[in-house]
């Protein structure tokens, strides 16, 4: 079972610590995405796994092999770059053949004229060309084999890069924002294709992106990174519906999650907008003093029907029409803060300045403590008590 185990990984560039003792376990055959904004260390982590950079501390193991002892080409990892990184002077076919020839032939056999002198070398070249053609066919670029990269479109180039990575059957595929240079339509198509490829090949994919849609739609698990640390590692569902802390909650989901101030009183009861909405468990004793907390709910979780939830009302200060829905910003009547709601586009009479009233179901609410960590929240204890 090729499993990647990363322990205590530290990488410094000059005085800045890009990775701060990072631990990560990647399961065999899993599609893991490293998600984070630029500068969070996700690409650095990928380059360390590939062997393009050396860490300052920590270990990386693939199975039981210590990867740090191996050169990049010995690690059995293939990488796809944002810039495609094709060899511009070689044809598509030669590009795809290169990793096979560099592995299959020794130093002397790779010298220019050897192909014409020795049948062994000729046979290896022929084999490489057959494998390259097969891979190219599976990606639908077999008719481009004789072209140079400069004559291809961005999408075709990225397929060539994929083919070059696939042709040597690596144990791990590393993707460094491979779709960032492509237009939106192509990105969507290739996203699906890469996911399909993963299901076909069944090997481990580690995929770096700053695009949460990519991360959520493709991955088995997502690692949300920030400032050289992993904030949360979980399935897309866990990341979205149970964010471990306020940073993950803020980073994932569009429009951004609404965060309103609340307070936790001594007995663990959570108060917001002048009413008790529930209580949290496992709060350290704070001597009865109330502490601040953040109450989060997604713009999508609201209803026009009167449920027993958090009632939000105030004048609409901005409306954005996206086709499927209306994104309305509401200025809270009580505290003057802003809240964003996604409403069905058929919502009637939404003009700036008009009042809007919406309810947020209490079971859709996330509570984050003063340190930003998620707190276990039980909504509305009063009602629950009454039912009991």
């Amino acid at each position: 079972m090729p499993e990647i185990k990363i322990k205590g990984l530290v990488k410094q560039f000059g005085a800045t610590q890009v990775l701060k003792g990072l631990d990560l376990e990647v399961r065999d055959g899993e599609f893991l995405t490293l998600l984070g904004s630029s500068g969070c260390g996700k690409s650095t982590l990928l380059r360390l796994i590939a062997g393009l950079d050396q860490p300052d501390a920590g270990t990386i193991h693939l199975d039981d092999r210590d990867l740090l002892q191996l050169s990049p080409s010995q690690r059995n990892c293939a990488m796809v770059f944002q810039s495609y990184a094709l060899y511009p002077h070689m044809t598509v076919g030669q590009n795809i053949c290169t990793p096979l020839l560099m592995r299959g032939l020794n130093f002397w056999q790779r010298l220019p004229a050897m192909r014409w002198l020795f049948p062994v070398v000729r046979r290896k070249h022929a084999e490489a060309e057959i494998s390259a053609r097969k891979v190219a066919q599976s990606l639908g670029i077999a008719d481009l084999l004789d072209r140079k990269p400069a004559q291809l479109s961005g999408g075709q180039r990225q397929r060539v890069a994929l083919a070059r990575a696939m042709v040597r059957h690596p144990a791990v595929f590393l993707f460094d924002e491979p779709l960032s240079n492509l237009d939106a339509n192509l990105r969507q198509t290739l996203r699906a294709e890469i996911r399909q490829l993963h299901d076909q090949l069944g090997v481990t994919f580690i995929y770096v992106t700053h695009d949460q849609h990519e991360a959520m739609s493709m991955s088995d698990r997502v690692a949300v990174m920030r400032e050289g640390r992993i904030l949360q590692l979980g399935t897309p569902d866990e990341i979205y519906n149970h964010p471990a802390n306020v940073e993950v909650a803020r980073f994932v989901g569009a429009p951004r999650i609404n965060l309103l101030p609340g307070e936790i009183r001594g007995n663990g009861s959570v108060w917001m907008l002048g009413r008790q909405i529930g209580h949290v468990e496992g709060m350290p004793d704070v001597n009865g003093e109330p502490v601040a907390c953040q109450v989060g709910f997604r713009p999508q979780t609201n209803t026009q029907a009167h449920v027993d939830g958090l009632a939000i009302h105030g004048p609409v200060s901005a409306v954005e029409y996206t086709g499927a829905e209306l994104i309305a910003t509401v200025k809270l009547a009580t505290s003057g803060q802003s809240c964003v709601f996604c409403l069905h586009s058929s919502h009637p009479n939404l003009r700036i300045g008009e009042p809007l009233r919406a309810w947020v179901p209490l079971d859709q609410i996330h509570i984050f403590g003063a340190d930003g960590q998620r707190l276990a929240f039980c909504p509305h204890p009063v009602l629950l008590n009454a039912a009991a």
Partner: protein
Amino acid sequence: MRVHPLNTLMLISPAAVLLVVMLLLPVITVAVMSLTDWQFGAATLNWIGLANYVELWGDPVFRKSLGNTFLYLVLVTGGAVSIGLGAALLIESDSQLRGFYRTAFFMPVASTLIAMAVVWQFLLHPSAGMVNHLLELIGLTPRDWLNDRHVALYSLAVIGIWQMSGLALVLFLAGLKSIPQDVRDAGALDGISHPWERFRRITWPLLGPTTLFVVTVCAIRALQVFDTVHVLTRGGPNKSTEVLLHTIYAEGFSFFRMGYASAMTVVFIAGIFFLTQVQHTTMERKTHY
């Protein structure tokens, strides 16, 4: 936006006037002059058609000069390109003193060659020169570098290489910088890790456009060699260092045969034009690789 034709004319006129006055008129004048027997300072001239060119064809000095120029061009271009590339690769591999090396190598390019020629004259002096002293020290026979007709042109070529390799180096350093790191990384993952393999499969092919540019720039500048020849050897001994520009200068301003010198100039301009065209057409092609 539509621009009135008259405005267009007005806008291009400063550049056009300069181009005509500074470039086209002199070239045309020289071309016309090459068809006459005009002597410098003479009041009259006669049309003699292509007689100057016919004379050129049979002139042993001109032939020698053309041959010397070509040999000098090949030596200097080859030398400067290899030294420039080698030094650029060494400097690029360890970035510690890059700025210092770049400046040091570029200094000869920026300095006045006439002044530098005098320094070289001292270095190569048969009895007092440092070069001969060093040779004697390691037991080799000293030579009269600038007055021996077997080695004089090579001595000049060495000075030419010394001067040009800095330019080649700076251009190659820029070319090396423009090779994307991603391509090198992809190579490392694909198994292109041995330095020689990396040079042969990635660096050298991707430097193709740079190399072409460096070669043509060096060739054009080598074709224009004059200062060192004029200061150090004056074409001698026995015409062994006679080069095109120096021959033109001698014919025109020592022997005052302006018509004949003009014919040589036309040949010279044709050579430069040819090299420039080679450079231009190859640089224009979008996919150089």
